[in-house]
């Protein structure tokens, strides 16, 4: 148990507060920047209090876009990012839960070989196989499409391993009881495995959604049209080399907006995390 001493709580809290400050201060600064006008930031007159242009900047960022750099408004980019993150997260979960189910519950020739092949792909993230993957995507006419953005990122060894470990904790008696109750492999999956995996799926969704949302290298290669840009790439493109032209207030607002969906996912799914930890139903 945790020791309880009168002054013992002070130091941990101090450390936590310092940690929070380190993380939160740049975010706050970013928010302040998004409420000022471009000239103030460019002149280095930015203070620590928010300026008056909150609604104006965010309206322009979301629905108009910057003048010279990215011709699309950030709302489109957010939509693209959202679609990409969602499809990647759901696709990864769907594929990996099915493949783990096959590896854990079915006896077929080369079962372990199949499992190890999935395992080995852990060592082959997109960055490593980027050229052949790009070539294939291009040959299949997947450039500048949602399919091209998401499909190559969907296959996932991590999630497969994660579900495999979880499936192995489901007692054998449940499978046997299902067999006696007349449930075949499909029914057992749908009626027992899937409901029992709910909290695991939720946890994985959070991780994978953020993974998808933060993708940078792959989208930058596969999308050339402005209307297929994701928000992470949008931020990059807004920052032009000639400093005076960069609309820093819009960049800051975009950065703030880019943070919102992952934060929302974490906040909304937190309840499930806790539920998954508290509930021991097996």
């Amino acid at each position, binding site marked *: 148990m945790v020791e309880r001493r009168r002054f013992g709580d002070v130091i941990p809290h101090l450390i936590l507060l310092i940690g929070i400050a380190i993380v939160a201060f740049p975010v706050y600064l970013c928010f302040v920047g998004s409420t000022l006008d471009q000239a103030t930031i460019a002149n280095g007159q930015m203070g620590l209090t928010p300026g008056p242009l909150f609604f104006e900047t965010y309206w322009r960022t979301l629905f108009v876009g910057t003048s010279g750099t990215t011709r699309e408004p950030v709302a489109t980019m957010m939509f693209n990012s959202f679609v990409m993150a969602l499809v990647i997260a759901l696709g990864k979960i769907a594929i990996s839960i099915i493949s783990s189910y096959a590896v854990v519950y079915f006896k077929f020739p080369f079962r372990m070989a199949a499992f190890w092949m999935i395992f080995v792909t852990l060592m082959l993230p997109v960055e490593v196989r980027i050229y052949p993957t790009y070539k294939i995507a291009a040959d299949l006419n997947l450039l500048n499409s949602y399919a091209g953005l998401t499909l190559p990122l969907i296959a996932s060894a991590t999630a497969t391993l994660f579900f495999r470990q979880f499936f192995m904790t489901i*007692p054998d*008696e*449940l499978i*046997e*009881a299902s*067999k*006696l*109750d*007349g*449930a075949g492999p499909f*029914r057992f999956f749908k*009626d*027992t495995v899937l*409901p*029992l995996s*709910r909290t695991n799926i939720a946890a994985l969704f959070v991780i994978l959604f953020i993974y998808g949302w933060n993708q940078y290298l792959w989208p930058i290669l596969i999308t050339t049209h402005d209307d297929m840009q994701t928000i992470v790439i949008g931020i990059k493109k807004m920052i032009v080399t000639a400093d005076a032209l960069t609309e820093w207030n819009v960049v800051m607002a975009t950065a703030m907006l880019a943070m919102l969906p992952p934060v929302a996912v974490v906040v909304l799914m937190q309840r499930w995390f806790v539920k998954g930890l508290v*509930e*021991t*139903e*097996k």
Partner: protein
Amino acid sequence: MASVTLQDVRKVYAGGVEAVKGVSLDIPNGSFTVLLGPSGCGKSTLLRMIAGLEAITSGTVSIAGKVVNEVEPAERDIAMVFQNYALYPHMSVYDNMAYGLRNRGTAKEEIEKRVAEAAKLLAIGDFLKRKPRELSGGQRQRVAMGRAIVREPQAFLFDEPLSNLDAKLRVQMRIEIRRLHNRLKATSIFVTHDQIEAMTMADSIVVMNGGRVEQTGAPNHVYRFPATRFVATFIGSPAMNLLPGRIAGPGEAEIAGGGRIAFDPNAFDVTPGREVEIGIRPEDLRLAGSGEGALTFKKDFAEELGATRLFHGTVGEGAVVVALSGPAPAGDSFGLSAAPDAVHLFDPASGDSLRRA
């Protein structure tokens, strides 16, 4: 309801381990049969082969006269109660019971009727909407039985269903299972390693050891006429005392270094001089006055059980336990005797009973 017949059933695992070495059994319609034996004797494997959860290496399993070796578990029309209950944790009690019926396409009204009946029978009507984790061990056990009952199967299979319960609940549930059986008259096969469960619940006990059946019979018969040394020591608590000795004359055996004891000469097929193992149950031994041809018992220590006392000590060279009620005998050594028909004789080499067939 139906009879279950096993014909020379064997199970050899992939590693070459022979778990069940040729078992033939006839479990009559409506009987409560208990498969009893120590861990690893193959009793659970046998049950799982009847259920269809384990492939049969050779031999046949028939339910209601039909060979079911190649029939899927769900189509064998049997229901099983597992040791850890194996309730679906995410389903309510009602859904747990209804699941098997739904999968079989039973009409909704029929499911409702059967679940309601089973719930009433098992007194779990108040928990139908709860999840298994909100129930106590005993209540989960009832739900597991309810799930079996609603199926109205040909036979019920129980795989050590009471071993996860505390001692008090175990006694209570075993009475309830037996009462339920008396009501439903369903063919039941019950696996346990607890000889008290076996004795109290069974119509017929099948004692197993090392993948073989040692003896089959009514509890009282198995207790009174054990066919082998294994059965003799496995059934009854504390275990039967076994003492080396030889036949001294007609109806009389001599315990090595411990005196003579009379046995029923008509019951055993022995000739004087033969080496035997003499078995006497602790509860069959009683105090004897000296000079009555008694065995001399040297007391080591005593255990107080309330109604009886267990005295641990030796007769001759062998360790002996005696269960006595009434006042404790004085002194560290006293005489013991047993009725001639309470004396069992076994072959020292094979362990088989020397009783005439």
